[in-house]
Every structure is written in structure tokens, then in C-alpha cells.
């Protein structure tokens, strides 16, 4: 403090103090009004940065919860459909057992045959159940009806080019499909050009994994897909990224694929939520029973009055029920896992909310006290300012 206290010093100091206190006052009022202690990033840099992370986690959690909700109805539908399917198979087995016995007659077997036909049709419609336009049991080809009404031999669709292809020429297939499973072959052009210059690679699983790139000019010859199938291209210009698709089906009823549908339940945690028709109803399932074939065989045995044949189907029907039960229990365990994950996510969400609140929410009681204190300080400041020039020598001069 200097020796001379001049007038502007007094004013400047008073005004400076007033501004300081007013600013502090308005900061506290801001927090009180917004009920938040964090109104700008710089109010708490570390808090703001953690807030970004916590909010992201919260949003992730909401996404995972959403995933679980999306699969809830799918799982419930799958389980109830499979349960009904199991019941139908049990009924068919009952019929088979009763009609295999010596007491059954030709006519009773005939009428049982029509019962079995009904069961067959009901089961077919169950296996072709849709939820929101998507088939439950066709693997990842949810837009394709998984089961045909009657057994088909091994076959393949004609190859098609994708809609956006540059290549406009003809694609043809040759050969008989020998694969054991339904497959989707994809030929992708890697480097463009005429058939003598372009190169390609082949995928046997619909485009997920790719084989090695071919030599240039290999397109002029037959493209060997494997499992007895080939594709032939007419002359034309290919562009990189042109895609040609050919689907091949193993003998039987199933025309979906064996791929899983999955959702993410957390960082690096995925849950498969579908049961493929392949696993539940075909001989590629755990019981190795082609369910529809068994029913068809049972029906024809009943029609033809063949007790031995009927008895033979009884065991297969037992295995078929077992196969469906395995699928049901798999469904149940997925549902359990989902429920547990949902509980965990709910807890985590709660924790996040608490942590976010701890960072950004103001302590109202503390703020109220601060407001009172700042008010007193502000009043004192005004008092002093009002008295600043009360005493000068002028008061004492006549």
C-alpha cells in the first residue's frame, strides 16, 4: 500500500471489488438456476471429459438394452413355436405307437394317415413362422421361406448378377450339386476388364470369406465353384466389384442356411438368438432326424399298411422330439442370458446415472449457503462504495 491514497485509487478499488463480488455472485446464481455445477467445459475440465465418456457408456447401454428388447419377442416366439412343434411330434409318435400294434387295422391306419398329414401340415406352417416379415427358422436368409411343402432333390438356382453390375453378359451354370448343406456361392470380380483380363475370387459362404484371387484370363474358362458346380461367363466387360450369386441346396425340405443371427450385448459380447431350421428340423441337427421326411414316411407307411415301417418311424420320432427339445433348451438358455445381461445393464445404467449426477449436479444446500454469503459480501461492498467520499477535508472548510 502506498503512502498516498488518491481518489481514483479509492474509486478503482471499490469498483474492482464490486465487480469481483458481483461476478462470484452471478456464478453461484448460474449454478443455482441451472441446478448444475458444470455449466461450461472449463468449470471442471476433468469432469467434462469424464462426462463425455460416461454419456457415451450410457448411450451404449441403451443400445444394448434395445438389442435385448428387439430379440425378446423373437426368442419368445421361437420357444413357443418349437414347443408346439414338439407337441405335434409327440402326437405323431402316439399315433405311430398305437398303429404299429397288431390291434390296428387297415382302416384305422388310413384314418391315422390323414391325422399325420394334418400334423405334417401344421408342423410345416410352424416351421415357416414369420415375425415382423422375417422367417424365424431360415438362418440368416430371413426373407426366404425355410421349408418347402415336399422334399426336393439336390438342386441349384440359376446364377444371377447383382443389380449394380457393369457386366451385362450371360452367366450359366453347369453340374450337379453334391454338397451336404445349402450354400450360396458368390463370384466377385477383383480386377475389371474383359474376360481375358479380369480376375475374380469365389466365396462359398455367401461372401463372408473369399478364396484366392484367380489368374487374369481365368474368366474365359469355366469358373469352378466346388461341390460339382461350375459357372460360365459369356464374353463381356467386367468391372471390379461385380458380384454373381448362385444358390445351391442339398436334398430335402430346407432352403434357408445354417447361419446364426446375433446381437451385441456389450463390448465384445455377442449372443446368437436364432435357432436355424436346419438344426431343429433336418438331419443336420443333433438328432440327425429329418423331421418332415419322418412324418412323410410315417404317412406313407400308414397309407400302405406297413406295421414294420410304422414301428421304425416311432424311434425316429422319439429322436425328432429330442432334437426339438435341445433347440428349445438352447432357446431358454439364450433367454436367460439375455435377462441376466439386461439386469446387469440396468444396474450399470443406474451407476452411470449416479456418476453423471455426481459430476454435473449442484449441491443445492451448499449453493444456497454460498448465495447468502455472497449477498452479505455484496451488500457490504455497496455500503462501502456509498461512503467512499463521505469524509474529506471539504466537510470541514467553511
Amino acid at each position, binding site marked *: 500500500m*502506498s503512502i498516498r491514497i488518491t481518489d481514483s485509487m479509492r474509486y478503482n478499488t471499490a469498483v474492482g471489488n464490486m465487480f469481483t463480488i458481483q461476478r462470484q455472485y452471478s456464478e453461484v446464481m448460474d449454478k443455482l438456476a441451472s441446478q448444475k455445477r458444470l455449466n461450461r467445459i472449463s468449470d471442471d475440465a476433468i469432469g467434462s471429459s469424464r462426462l463425455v465418456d460416461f454419456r457415451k457408456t450410457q448411450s451404449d447401454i441403451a*443400445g444394448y438394452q434395445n438389442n435385448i428388447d428387439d430379440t425378446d419377442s423373437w426368442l419368445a416366439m421361437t420357444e413357443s413355436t418349437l414347443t408346439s412343434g414338439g407337441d405335434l411330434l409327440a402326437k405323431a409318435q402316439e399315433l405311430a405307437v398305437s398303429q404299429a400294434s397288431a390291434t390296428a387295422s387297415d382302416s384305422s391306419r388310413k384314418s391315422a394317415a390323414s391325422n399325420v398329414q394334418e400334423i405334417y401340415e401344421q408342423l410345416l406352417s410352424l416351421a415357416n413362422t414369420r415375425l415382423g416379415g422375417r422367417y424365424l427358422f431360415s438362418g440368416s436368409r430371413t426373407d426366404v421361406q425355410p421349408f418347402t411343402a415336399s422334399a426336393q432333390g439336390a438342386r441349384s438356382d440359376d446364377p444371377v448378377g447383382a443389380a449394380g453390375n457393369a457386366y451385362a453378359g450371360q452367366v450359366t451354370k453347369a453340374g450337379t450339386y453334391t454338397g451336404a448343406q445349402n450354400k450360396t456361392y458368390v463370384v466377385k470380380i477383383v480386377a475389371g476388364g474383359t474376360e481375358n483380363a479380369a480376375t475374380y475370387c469365389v466365396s462359398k459362404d455367401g*461372401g463372408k470369406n473369399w478364396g484366392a484371387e484367380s489368374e487374369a484370363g481365368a474368366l474365359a474358362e469355366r469358373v469352378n465353384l466346388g461341390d460339382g458346380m461350375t459357372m460360365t461367363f459369356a464374353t463381356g466387360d467386367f468391372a471390379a466389384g461385380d458380384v454373381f450369386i448362385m444358390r445351391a441346396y442339398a436334398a430335402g425340405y430346407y432352403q434357408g442356411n445354417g447361419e446364426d443371427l446375433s446381437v451385441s450385448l456389450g463390448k465384445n459380447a455377442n449372443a446368437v438368438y436364432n435357432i436355424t431350421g436346419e438344426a431343429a428340423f433336418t438331419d443336420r441337427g443333433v438328432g440327425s432326424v429329418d423331421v418332415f421326411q419322418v412324418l412323410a414316411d410315417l404317412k406313407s407307411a400308414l397309407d400302405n399298411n406297413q406295421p414294420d415301417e410304422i414301428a421304425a418311424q416311432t424311434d425316429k420320432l422319439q429322436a425328432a422330439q429330442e432334437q426339438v427339445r435341445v433347440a428349445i433348451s438352447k432357446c431358454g438358455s439364450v433367454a436367460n442370458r439375455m435377462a441376466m445381461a439386461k439386469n446387469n445393464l440396468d444396474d450399470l445404467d443406474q451407476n452411470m446415472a449416479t456418476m453423471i449426477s455426481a459430476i454435473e449436479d449442484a449441491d443445492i444446500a451448499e449453493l444456497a449457503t454460498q448465495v447468502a454469503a455472497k449477498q452479505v459480501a455484496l451488500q457490504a461492498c455497496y455500503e462501502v462504495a456509498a461512503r467512499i467520499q463521505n469524509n474529506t477535508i471539504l466537510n470541514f472548510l467553511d
Partner: protein
Amino acid sequence: MSISSLLNVSKDAMLSYQMAMDVTGGNISNVNTAGYTRQRTVFAASGNVNALSASAQLSVRIEKIERQFDSHTEMQIAEQAQRVGAGDVKNEMLQRVETVFDETNGGKLSDVISRFWNSWDDLANNPSGQVERDALSSVAQEMAGMFNSYADQLYSLQQSVNDSVKGAVADINDYTTEIASLNRQIGQISGTSGEANRLLDERTGLLKKLCGLINCQYIEGANGALNVYLTNGQSLVEGEISHELALMKSHDGDFQEVAYKESGERLNGILTAEKGELGAYLDIRDRAIPEYRDKLDDMAGTIRQEVNKIHRQGFDAKGNLGGMFFTTDPENSTSYARDLTLNKEILADPGKIAAAASVAGDGEQAAAVAALKDKLIMSDGQATISVFYASVIGQLGRDVAAASRDNDYQHNVMSQLTNQREGISGVSIDEEMMNLIKYQMGYNTAGKLCQVVDEMMDTLMSLVQ
């Protein structure tokens, strides 16, 4: 000594006190004038006494009108003005950057990025859903738009800082011209006159303003001229001559650079960020804001690259291979944040979103994109997008808080120095009133002297009659 010379003594005294009252009056009337330096009348006795010859010729005269100031304090103030100027700019500009990134209430960039990933998850759950595709397309546009808008806001902030640079250079040139012209006027007028004091005050005021703008040094040279130099020794004011700064087109960017006009030498290295508004403006424009823009570019560029990489391996709703998901407009731009856009083909037809890993139309590719949210794809595989952005926010918060704290501190130092200066150079009304009483007393007594001499003359005259 003659009686009549006594009348002269009385006259000298009365005139001197009148002058002193004038100066006091000037002080009182300027009590609220910013930068005014109080002035003091310095009296000196004149004449001498010779007792042997019984002659005395004692009187009073005014030696000088003194400006009360401490050049060291003035120098400190000029120096501090540089720090305050720079601190103000840094504080204000960083706060404006802070409002661009304001994340405290949610709903901003981090939120829209989260929604973007979640939309991919939704699509993964229902890959054939038109609603999910539309939603993803619109969230992707929203996110790209948010990046664009952040980058645009930062760019327009740079532009407005560039305008401030132009303004500061114009002001600096004005001030140096005025200081040079004041140097000339001060040289012409004798150093002790009141007029020169006013000019000195004016020049000091200008010097402080100049120091607020630019990092410079000064010395008072011969014949009272104030010479101002840049830190590399080039002079801004030298006696009566001033040297201008000029704006030059920068080599690479859209903005102007500051140069010494006569040599054309660019001054980027000399104008430090800590001293003077100009240096702070340049630092904000060329370093601080570009740093944040680079970080945004880094994020937008990484998202673009990683999403495209996965997207191009997937199949769209019609079984075609996926194309680019994000592009930039113009196409080869590297200002990813400013120019990020959703691929026009996807915009026109969301069916082109490649959600499937196979031609079966599954959602695995969409799920793979959604999983990017937890992948360490930033900072050379050290951080996720979210962690990276959180660290940007944290850094910005710390920068703003530090700038604000530093600015408060610099202002405190400045107000202490100003008080110190006020203690020396400021006007105190009480003191001036005391002086007024003192000088009035002197004036009155001198008048009384005149009266007494008059009576003595009368006595003398009556002797003659």
C-alpha cells in the same frame, strides 16, 4: 534597497501563488482524467541579502512545474499491458472455442456419434428394415453435418481473429505515427512547460495502448524523444519517424501475415503469444484453433476410413458390394471434418447401405460397424473415438481454465501496478485542498505586504510635505 522594489517582491509572490493556484486547479479538474499525471509547483527563492550595504532583494519565483511520476513503475505498467493484452485475447478466444464444443448439456457431437453407432446396431437387428436404413442415413447426415458445423464455426472464428489481426496492425500503425508526431512536438517545446507535461501524458497513454497490442521495448532518447523497438531491434518509432507494419498474404493459408513494411520481413517469430494482442491473435489463429480443427479432422477422417473399410466389404440390400459410406465434398479434401458427407448414392437410396456380411442379407456387417465404437482406432490404436473426444474436451477445458486463471492474475498484477502509479501520480482532492489553502494564505499575505508598502509610501510622502 528601495521601497518600490518591495512592491515588486509582493507582485512576484502574488503572481507565483496565482500560478500555483492555476496548477492546483488543473490537478483538481483532472482528478478523473485517465492517465493524468499530477503536477506540482516548485517555488524557489530568488535574490540575496547584503546586510552591510543594508540592501536586500529577496523574492520568490517558480522554478518549474513538475510532473510527479516514477519511470520504473511506468515501465512495469507498459510491460504488464503486453501481458494483459495477450491474456485478454487468449481468454476471450478460447472461451469462444469452448462454446463451439460445449458438451455440458449433452445433445452435441458426442451424443450424435453415439446415436450413429446405435443406428448401425438397430440395422444389424433388422437388416432388411427400411425404417432402420432411413434412420441410419439421417443420423449419418446429422453427424456429418455436426462435424461440418464444428469445423465451420472454428474456421469462422479464425476469420474473425484474422480481422482482429488487421485491426490491431492498423491501430499499431496509428499509435506509432502519433507517438512520432508527439516526439516532434515535445522536442519543440521546452521540457518544463505545462504544455509539454500534457503531451508527455498523452504519449505515455499511447505507449501503454501500443504495448497492449504488440511485444515491444522502448527507451527515452536524447531531447526527450521516445523510441520504440521490436524485440529483434527493428524500430517502430525513432525520434520523429515511425515505421509501419504491413499485412502480407501468407504462403499457404487464407490469412494474412504481419511483416515489417520496409523490409517485408515476416514477424511471426517475434510476436510471442504471451505478450501483446497481436501475438496472441496470431497464436490463436495459427496454432490453437488449427489444433482443435486437426483433432476434429482426425476423428472425422478416422470414422470415414474405418466405416468405409467395413462397409465396402459388405453387401447392400440388392446383393451388390458396398461402396463408400462417407465421402468428402470436394472429393479429395483432407479437411475431413469440414467436408464430410454421406455418399450421395446412399442418400438417394438407403438400400445401398451394405449391412450384410453375405448375400443372404444378414446384419453382421452393420454389427461390425457398430462395434467400431469400442475399437481402439484413434491415436495409433491407443484410444476409442469417444475416449479421444473426451480427451479433446478435457484439454480444451484445462486450456480455458488456465487462460482464465492466468488472465485474472495478470489483471491483478496490473491493478496493483496501477494503484502504485496512482499513489505516485494520482490526484488527491484532500491534498489539493490543503495546497489551495496554503497558496491562498500566501496570496493573501502577499497582498497584505503590498498594502503595508502602500502605507509606508504614504508615511514617506507625508514627510516631504
